[in-house]
Structure formats: C-alpha cells, structure tokens
C-alpha cells in the first residue's frame, strides 16, 4: 500500500513548511510540496497550511494568500471534505478564506510571544485529533503576534454548543483569545485551525520539550488509511 500523501503549502513568506514536511514524514506519510502559484493540489489526501508571514502579512494576516491560485483549488476541495490543518498563519488563512469562522487579531499584550503553552484538547472527533483523549492536556509551542481569536457572540455560542472548539489554552491565556480558544473546526470536522504549532513538538532532541504534536499526524494517518 502506498503511503498517504499530505500536501504542505508554501506561499511567499511561509516559514514553517520545512517543519511541517518533517512532521508529516516522521509520522510515515509522504510530504508533497504545494506551491502557492499553482492551480494544482497534486492529488494529495490532506493538506497542511503551515505558519509564517505569507505575503509579508501585508494588508492583514492571510488576507492576500486566500486569493492565491492554490487556495482557489483548495477552498472547494476543503468544502467537499478534504482534510485540512492550518497552524498559526495557516489558521489565519483559513479564517480569511471563510473555511472557519471568526478572526485572529493582535495579541492582547501587543507583543509577539513565543513560549511552550499548555493546551487542553476539547474535541477528539476531528480528522486531526482522534488520537488524543478528550480533556487531555498537552504542551505545544505558540509563536505569534496576532493570535487573539475573536468572533461575534452568535458565532461563539454556536462553536461552543456544537463542540467545535477543539483546543483551549490551559493555565494562562497568552493572547486574550475569547473563551480561551486556541483552535476550532468546521461543522464536518475535516478542517482544523489552531495557533499552536504541533510540527515543533514531534522530536525529543529539537523543538519544544515533549512530543505532544505527534498526535495530529497519527490521527490523520489513521483516518486516511481507514478511508
């Protein structure tokens, strides 16, 4: 059986694509580079939108990327059920593309913040979180200046009542996100966006202490193999 193929998107200004591809490979899947200027998803089974400062964060984080040729292919594919994970700038792009509701705004403390953050897993029914247990606390790095999740009251209520808040900051809230939200999913559970970086927590030697990020990649692999 051939390995599952996970696309890793590079926009101009994407920074964590190398880490994302490594995390995919370490989990036993094939990492397929996807280029922003191509109208081509290369037949991948899932897509990872990594962090960075795509298009220099000009205008607004993710606002330009969402119009790129690759995204015009990805948006309908995701709506049709293709599993997509967006971390950090990838999460911002998913929100700008209206694949996920709400927006990420400047951190409450106004500073960029890089630290190892305690996160609580709230939903294990998504394509990317089935290998966690509900209520499990994990440590993942966060590193962002604009990660404060906001949405209107109706959207927040809907996210909460339908269990679409996937991750919440535990311990302390680093950026002022409403309801301590660190990550959310769409109704179908195939699209997940979060500010923390699972791809920086997959090896003992490097990155964050611990390997709590591996669960994202083992989850999606199980899903793809069983599909």
């Amino acid at each position, binding site marked *: 059986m051939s390995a599952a193929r996970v696309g890793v998107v590079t926009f101009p200004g994407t920074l964590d694509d190398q*880490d994302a591809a490594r995390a995919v490979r370490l989990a036993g899947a094939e990492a397929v580079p996807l280029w922003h200027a191509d109208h081509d998803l290369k037949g991948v089974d899932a897509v990872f939108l990594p962090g960075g*400062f795509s298009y220099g964060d000009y205008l607004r984080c993710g606002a330009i990327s969402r119009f790129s040729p690759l995204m015009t292919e990805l948006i309908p594919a995701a709506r049709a059920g293709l599993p997509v994970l967006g971390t950090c700038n990838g999460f911002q792009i998913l929100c700008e593309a209206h694949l996920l509701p709400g927006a990420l705004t400047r951190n409450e403390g106004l500073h960029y913040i890089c630290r190892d953050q305690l996160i609580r897993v709230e939903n294990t029914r998504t394509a990317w979180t089935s290998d966690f247990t509900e209520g499990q606390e994990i440590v993942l790095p966060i590193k962002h200046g604009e990660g404060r999740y906001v949405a209107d009251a109706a959207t927040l209520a809907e996210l909460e009542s339908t269990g679409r808040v996937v991750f919440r900051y535990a311990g302390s809230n680093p950026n002022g996100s409403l309801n301590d939200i660190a990550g959310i999913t769409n109704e179908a559970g195939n699209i997940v966006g979060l500010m923390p970086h699972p791809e*920086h927590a997959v090896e003992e030697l490097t990155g964050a202490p611990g390997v709590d990020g591996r669960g994202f990649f083992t989850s999606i692999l199980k899903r793809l193999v069983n599909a």
Partner: protein
Amino acid sequence: MNIDTVRRAQETPDERQPYAELGMKDDEYQRVREILGRRPTSAELAIYSVMWSEHCSYKSSKVHLRQFATKAPKSEALLVGMGENAGVVDIGDGWAATFKIESHNHPSYVEPHQGAATGVGGIVRDIMSMGARPIAVMDSLRFGGADQPDTRRVLPGVVEGISHYGNCLGLPNIGGEVVFDPCYIGNPLVNALCVGLLRKDQIKLATAPGPGNKVVLFGARTGADGIGGASVLASATFEDESHAKRPAVQVGDPFMEKLLIECCLELYQADVVVGIQDLGAAGVSCATTELAAKGTGGMEVNLNLVPLRDPTLRPEEILMSESQERMMAVVKPDDIPAFMAICEKWDVPATVIGEVTDTGRLVMTWDGEVIVDIPPGTAADEGPVYERPLREPAGQAALNADGPERLPRPTDLRETLLTLLGSPNLGSKEWVTSQYDRYVRGNTVLAQPADAGMLRISETMPGAQETTRGIALATDGNGRYAKLDPYSGAQLALAEAYRNVAVTGARPLAVTNCLNFGSPEDPEVMWQFSEAVRGLADACRTLGVPVTGGNVSFYNQTGSTAIHPTPVVGVLGVIDNVAQRVRSGFTAPGLRVLLLGETREEFGGSEWAHVVHGHLGGLPPRADLEAERALAEVLTEAAARGLLEGSHDLSDGGLAIALAEACLAQGVGCTVTLPIEDAFVALFSESAARALVCVRPEAFDAVANLCARHEVPCYGLGLTGGSALTVEGVLEIPVEELREVHAAALPRIFD
C-alpha cells in the same frame, strides 16, 4: 538635473567641493585628487567619502586588527578568514559554517525599531553572500540603566525590531545577551550575529572575474533611505541634533529579505552565480568597488538602469543609498535567462546594470556621460590608514587602585543572593527572548536561557548529506571588566563565550568579534582599543581558536563621555554527535553536583560590587587561559562519554547565581556545601574558568579522574533534589521564591 561629469571635472578643477561635510579630511581629499589626477566628480566624491569612512575602511583600527592574522593559531578548520563578508570554518562531513557579528549601534539609538531590524537584515545578507543558508541569529544587546527613562524608549523598540524582522525571516533566535549599564544610555549597543551553513565546496566570494560577465542588481528597488548613513550616521558622535538625522536610518522589509534568501539559495543550486556581494553600508558604491577590485579589475555600470523607488534620485544618491534587501551578482551572459527566471519565480526584481571589464577602471555613466572613472582598488582597499596616538587614561591607575576590598561585606547572604537574582542584569531575560521565535526550521537543540545555542545540522537542508553533528554558538562581553583592564577584559569575554560553548559538550572552533568603543580620535579610547585587540589576539592564540571576522564600532560616545570599552566575542563550536548535547542546569533529582575550577577572592567589576555598592574599581578576575582550555577539554570529553546530566557555566554573580539558575532550569532544587570556608567569597566571587556540572552518582569517579588528568580542581558540592536551593549552614531558598524574584526583574520595569 545638473550632472557633474568627468569632463566637467576636468574643465572646472577649482570648483569647491563639500568633502568636509561628507566627513572627509583635507588630506584625504587631496589624496583622491592625486589618485585621479583631477578633482573628483561629485559621484566619485560620494564613493570615496563612504568607502574611506571609518565604518567601511577601518582606517583607525586596521593597524591593530592585523594581529588577528599575525597571531592566529594554526587551524585546519579555517576555510575563509578575515576580509570576506564572513569567515567560513570546516565543521566536518563536508559541511562548513559561516558566522559573523556586526553592530548597528547608532541607528538603533536614533530609531530603535528600524535600526535594530536592519541590523539583523544586514548580517543575514553577509551570511547569504558566502553561499550559505542562514540558519539562526543571536543578539548581544546593551542598554542604559534599566530604570533610566530613555531605556524604556530604546529597549522595547530594539527588541520589537529584532523580533519583527527576525521572526518574519524564519530564522530561530537562539541566544545572546541583554546587559544594562548607565554608560550605554546615549549609546546602546545592538550587535547582531548570524550563522549559516553550506557545503564546503560551495563557498561563494565577493569577486567579479571574467570580462563580459554581467553585473546584476537584484532585490528591493533603490530609494532615498540611509543616504550618507555610512559616513554620517555610523561615524559621527551624537550631540543634540540626532532628530535631524532621522531620515538617515534605513527601513527594512523582512518579507523581501525572506524572498531574497530563498531566491539566492536557488540561484546557488542552479550554479548561475560567479561572484556575489550584499549591499550594506555604502550600497552600490561598496558593492561595485569591492567586486571590481577583487575580480578582473574593471567594471562598467550604467546607473540609469538601477531600478528606483524614488525617480528623482541623483546619481550620487543612488551610489550612497543604503536601501535594504539588495544584492549584486556577477553572472555569465549564458546564465542570465536562468538567473532571471529564478528571480521571477520569487518575485524578486533583477536588472543587468553593467558588465565586467579588464580595463582596471570602474566606469559609471549617467545619461550617456561618464560620471565615475576610478581604479576601484583605490576606493575599496587603499583607504587611509591611521596610527592614532594612544595614551593610558588619566584615571586608570586610580581606578585600578580603588579595589573592592574596602566595600562592606554583607551579613545576610540569602538577601544578597535574591537582590542579585532580581537585578536587571541577572534576572530572567524572558521578557525579551519570548518575543523571538526560537523554534522555526525545527533544528534548535538548545536556545536561551541555555549557556549556548545549539543547532542540528543534518535536517537544515532537505536532501543534503546526513550527519550526526551539531554546532553551538555563544556571545559574551563584559564592559566593566574591560574598563578596569581592556587587555584581560577582552580575554575574559572570549573565555566566557568559549566556556559557554564547552559546557554544552561542543568543541570551540572559531571566533567572531564586535569591538564597541568610543572615539578613536581620543588617545585614551584608542589605548583601550589597542589593549583589547592585543588581549583578544593573544587569547585566541592560546586557546587555539582563530578570529574569522567581525566588526569595529567606534564613536560610541556622547560628548566626551565614551561607553565602557566593550569587546563582544562570539564563539562557534562543533559537537560530533548532537544527541549527546548537555542540557543546562539540574535536570533530575538524585544527581551529584560538582564544581570544576578554582575559586579565588575576585570582586573587581563584579555584579555584587555593581548592584549592591554601585562600585567599579580594582582589577577584573584573572584570565587564566590554560585553565579555560583544560576545563573545556574536561567538559567536551565528559559529554562525549555521556558522563554529564547537566551543566552550567559560572560567570556574573558567581556560584550563587549559577546554582540558582541551575535550580530554575527544570525546577529541581539542590543541597550543597561550599568548597571554601568564606561563604561570601565562595558564593559571589567571579573567578573565571569554572563550571557547575551534575552527574549520576556512578559517573562521579570517572569525572573526578578526568579532572585530575587535566589538572582541573573538582569539588563534590552535594546532591540535586528537593524544592529548595539549600547551602548548608548558610541559606535556604525555595525554588518557587527564586523563580518569582528572577522572573519579575524585567516585567517590573518594562510592562
């Protein structure tokens, strides 16, 4: 637009020229006239004035810096030494590392955010121009007193500038320093280091060989920023008019720089670059003269072809502009289409502006008329060289005589420890470092607050040859020590960086330095400079680590008051198996705690004298380089044999601070007894060549034997464990209390 052409210069030999306003001395201007056999055109004057500025020509420091070459230890690792954009060292398995530290002090005072940001951008382009992928940055920062009002303006801006630019580039920031002292209030020091990686056989050099080859300017368009920056900003002492100079600070665009990095790496991979140079200080002037001087010797450039952001720029301004994110490459005519296609892929503008010739002349035209016609070497390499007068500072003897012996000693050592631990210099730097991305690219093995940053090599570039190796980097400096004795102060800076690399298990290999001083026209400053260089060159020879490059920053003074002489030294080391890296501090309970090295009563320039008494006098700790070398041998061998569970170097604040930091690393306490009777000396003396290690009980004998073999004193202090730092019979402090005091040091002031 009236253009001063060569023809016009010949016709109007007596026209008065504003050379003095451009920072040139009378005799320097006369020398230009002699070289050219006529008066220079205004464009030529622009070139000579920037290329012969202190910043670009090293005219005051050159005679001293030669010692780094003449006294250099034999090193098989050195592939490219001083004089190129950055030095390159062989790190084994076909890999090479290139690294350099550079100052951006004056711009960071005038406009902290952009000044610091463009400092990062500049050093990253230096590393790129060697053919390397930049893989990490570090910053060595010095500010005025933490409680002085202007520090609240400068520090947040500098940190934000580094954070914004470095984070957008996707380079992990793995360490550095943050130091406060009132002497830096009008002259903060922003020294940025970058390290890059390349295959040993793929080094690129700044050279323009091969007549007919094309000269390509690529990257950002040229604008009016930083015009005159090189000579006016970096070389002029601040008085009160610094606001008038604000437009001279360059503005950076890290997004363009990130594209430029990826674009350059693809150009190297496609092998379409013959020579390459980044555009930093003195912009097009510097790049064209240096490339031409090191190549076949000639170059023709049509300045009308330089893409402009501001179409009203005059040719002199184009030559002097310090617009960021630009590079210049020499490319074979047949490779131009491939070169342009790669630039287009990355949305990087690229323009052929000229070609290499064999005439020995750098010729530039504007609207078809020749406006520059000079031998490029005279601007690039044959600038003035000064043997400035030196004089030991008038107060030096009195300063050295006023030792710390007279200071009253504390009775409550617990309180002293907490006071020091919560002081701005020894407190947690997390307020600063949490604004930097230390994880990006996924190869960070160690980062601050570890003693040195460490990176894995094998995963840095996809598809490249596997290796178990890693590199470690540390920067250190101590202005107070150097003020008391610049010779040994510089040696102590090197010793500390060398030790910080060794405690991680890496073998120190090579050195870069950033020499921050006052005005070279002051003989007392020049004495400090010459002593520091002599000390550093001697120490490099003794420790067997060559200087590969660096940077001199003069005129760090306000009025007649100079900063403390501040040589900052960066050391790069190699670890054969990066998985054997030694983590910082106490990593588990139940480990034996050992102190390696000799403790003497040494309080001159110490943190204790500084924080508790506001005193600076006497002599700094002895720089015992043989002892440093022996200690490093013990540490690297013990690490390679897997004997060490944790380590930490002793420096500012002595054993007391080292123990506290070791406890804070993982929240593991310890119970220790002191190696000598005088508890105050044992805890707070700053004797060099010491380190703290923790080992499994069964490894104790092996480490003790290793120490005996290298004649390194080794004291068993006690055991790790518990939730407090306990020094038997002296003090007991819960780790939680240590953490609160340590963590609050900077937020208390800057939040």
